[in-house]
């Protein structure tokens, strides 16, 4: 998807305009309803898809909350205590609409290899050795679904 392999898209650091959020939200509900009616993508088995959000959420609350926050809003305990003081790039806020459009393979790569290997913050650790590829798939699914969850539940 990204021909400049290893390079994170620059929009990663751009926050979408707050004004456009409700429109996005409505659209998201529609997509969610539509996708629920559609059969599961052929690449994924039913067992994989079932409970994937919950599995991702559980992994997230174990490995990612301290930075990305318990609401996935980028306000983990490390942010206030350390990253703001260091004036370094803050952990991403996954409730932002942009994250549902992030290609799965891009998110997968960053979680596997860490930020430093993708020209992002060195404080985003590599999880490729600690977590299985399937674990990371679940996390990617969770991240991409998070904006929807927040859009529906204001």
């Amino acid at each position, binding site marked *: 998807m990204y021909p400049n392999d290893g390079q994170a898209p620059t929009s990663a650091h751009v926050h979408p305009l707050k004004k456009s959020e409700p429109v996005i939200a409505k659209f998201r509900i529609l997509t969610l309803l539509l996708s629920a009616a559609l059969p599961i993508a052929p690449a994924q088995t039913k067992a994989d898809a079932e409970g994937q959000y919950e599995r991702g959420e559980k992994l997230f609350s*174990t*490995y990612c909350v*301290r*930075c990305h926050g318990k609401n996935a809003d980028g306000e983990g*305990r*490390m942010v206030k*205590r*350390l990253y703001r*003081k*260091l004036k370094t790039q803050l952990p991403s806020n996954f409730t932002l609409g942009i994250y549902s459009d992030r290609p799965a393979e891009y998110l997968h790569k960053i979680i596997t290899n*860490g930020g*430093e290997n993708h020209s992002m913050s*060195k*404080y985003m*650790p*590599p*999880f490729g*050795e*600690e977590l299985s590829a399937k674990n990371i798939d679940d996390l990617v699914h969770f991240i991409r679904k998070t904006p929807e969850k927040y859009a529906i539940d204001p």
Partner: protein
Amino acid sequence: MQTQSKQKLLHAAFIIAAMLTTITAQAAEIVVDQHNKTFVVEGNKVEAITINAGDTLRFRNDDPFFHNIFSLSDLKTFDLGSFPKGQSKTVTFDKAGMAEVECAIHPEMYMEVTVK
């Protein structure tokens, strides 16, 4: 004969004095290995360690995967970033108090550092 033993005594006293000054004046560097996702000092797994103010901890990764050691304690707040096997990074503790040391990749890793 008498002067010779006196000289020896003086010599010994000098060596002891020199040793004492190195102990008090020179802060120690203690190696803390990360091994099997635990903290290891001199071959023993530790969950707490006591050091003196001015001492340095050298966090050395002895596992074939990354660790990312950090602390959010008021005493010393730091994040060493992720580093692979064989690499090490140091943190010097200048003030007395307690610091909790964790790993950003492995939530089960935890160690308390008491600085006297």
